């Protein structure tokens, strides 16, 4: 479903990504791991269009998406959550998700019908599926950090993506919240047939739910393999141990 080949991205003299390769098959759950500064978020930004790659290919369902804007990439079925919480703080929780749903239903230009009455069921069911429906009327900026991260995911889901990219979805969460969130992600993948690409620092999570792991180090892809093989790989061990 998603293929990244030899992607390079530099900022002036700094090579943030210097040869990234990634393959994500349909329905898979794939994780990207690597020490801080390895270029994971940059890679995600390149995939979803916030940044333009210098060279290399990014193919989504066979189509080259490297030059497209985030808006176009989203319309093709890619959803994204962000590492730093990126919600709409002044809107309600319901409103946050509704924005995505309305966009998906191409109703964002609708001028005269009250938004409260549109796409209510869909938005509510989304909120329910992530466990936030009782907080629907709260202003998003007042939610706890963990809830805001979940809201992030809900917003991304509002577009009914086929590929969901999650950038450190459990960053800053407590252990209970973390396992609940990862359980949620797995559940969503199964019930909605989503393909999931995520990156994380918590290795337990990664190794427990990812079917394939890609390891990045200093902007390069080291390997991409099944979890057991990654665990046993010497280069990976060196990269991580070397950083400690």
């Amino acid at each position, binding site marked *: 479903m998603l293929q990244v080949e030899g992607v390079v991205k530099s900022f002036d003299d700094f090579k943030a990504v210097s040869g990234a390769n990634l393959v994500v098959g349909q329905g898979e759950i794939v994780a990207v791991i690597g020490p801080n500064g390895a270029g994971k978020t940059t890679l995600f930004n390149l995939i979803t269009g916030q940044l333009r790659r210098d060279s290399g290919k990014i193919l989504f369902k066979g189509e080259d998406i490297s030059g497209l*804007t985030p808006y176009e990439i989203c319309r093709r079925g890619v959803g994204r959550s962000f590492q730093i919480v990126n*919600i*709409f703080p002044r809107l309600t929780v319901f409103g946050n998700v509704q924005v995505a749903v309305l966009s998906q239903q191409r109703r964002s230009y609708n001028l005269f019908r009250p938004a409260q009455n549109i796409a209510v069921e869909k938005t509510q069911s989304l909120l329910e599926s992530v466990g936030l429906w009782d907080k629907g009327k709260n202003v*998003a*900026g007042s939610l706890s950090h963990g809830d805001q991260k979940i809201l992030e995911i809900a917003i991304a889901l509002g577009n009914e993506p086929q590929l969901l990219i999650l950038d450190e979805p459990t960053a800053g969460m407590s252990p209970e919240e973390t396992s609940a969130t990862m359980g949620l992600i797995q559940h969503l993948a199964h019930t909605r047939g989503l393909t999931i690409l995520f990156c994380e620092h918590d290795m337990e999570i990664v190794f427990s739910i990812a079917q394939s792991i890609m390891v990045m180090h200093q902007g390069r892809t080291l390997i991409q393999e099944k979890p057991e093989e990654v665990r046993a790989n010497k280069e990976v061990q060196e990269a991580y141990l070397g950083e400690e």
Partner: protein
Amino acid sequence: MIHSKPLGWALAFFIILLILPSIVPRFFVYILALIFVTSLLAMSLNLLVGHGGMFQFHHAVFYGVGAYTLALMVTKTSLPIWVGFVAGPLMAAMAGLIIGWFCVRLTQLYFGMLQISLGSLVWAVVFRWYSFTGGDDGIHGIRMPPFLSSLTSSYYFILIILVISLILLYLILKSPFGNTLQAIRDNPDRCAAVGIHVRRHQLTAILIATFFAGMAGVLFVVLEHSVFPDLLFWVLSLEIFIMCLLGGWFTFGGPILGAAITVSLRTFVGKYTEYWTMILGIILILLIFFLPEGVMGYFQGIFKPRAKEGAQRRM
């Protein structure tokens, strides 16, 4: 679902406004009508600034375009006045579309400064083209049809148009479009990532806002029977900005309050001193330091603490 309590108050207030011309002196009727016109102008700006997060720094241009369109149609053609009433907002919206199309390609400060540039060009043309627009004298003695010839009838006409416009603006703000616009204000990048074509929505908002600004311009002519280049001057643009800030730009009715306060103060203060501009400047500084959410925002903060918590972003 419109909440019944505020609606009740609004209705009562409206009825009072309807009765007023028969009980208060002429001068107050005039001031009220002026407040109505200015309110519509401020509300139209706030759609873009408060709800859309755009740096619409030269909104007055569209006000002026609407006003001058009507003025020119009445004085230079013999078309019925209704054509002018419709042409005013339409011309303003067209100007909004043209200028907006250029500005929307840029963000924030660049947007604002480009708009000042383009707007000033329009102002300069109006200011210098003596033979067509009357130059810096403007156009005076614009004839209104008999049903609008008295102050009272103008008052009612303006009030009706204002109320209709407010209802429309309210509907728009509560619609999916309005929600999307506010989302764009809060986080344009997230919107793009969610499949929203940010620029197109912003341009649509500009179209709507400039349409209503042009409408306000038309109403100005109905009230004053004249136009002058100051209507397009950048100082007025910033004054409207201040009105929105004063009233509270994240609220619906804030700009109306801001307009009312500003016009009243200007009239009242103007009787005692000719240095209203300085007073306005001092008020603005006080606002910036002590009341950045505006008057209405401040009161909302007291009565709705949860909403205030969410206001961590911006200002």
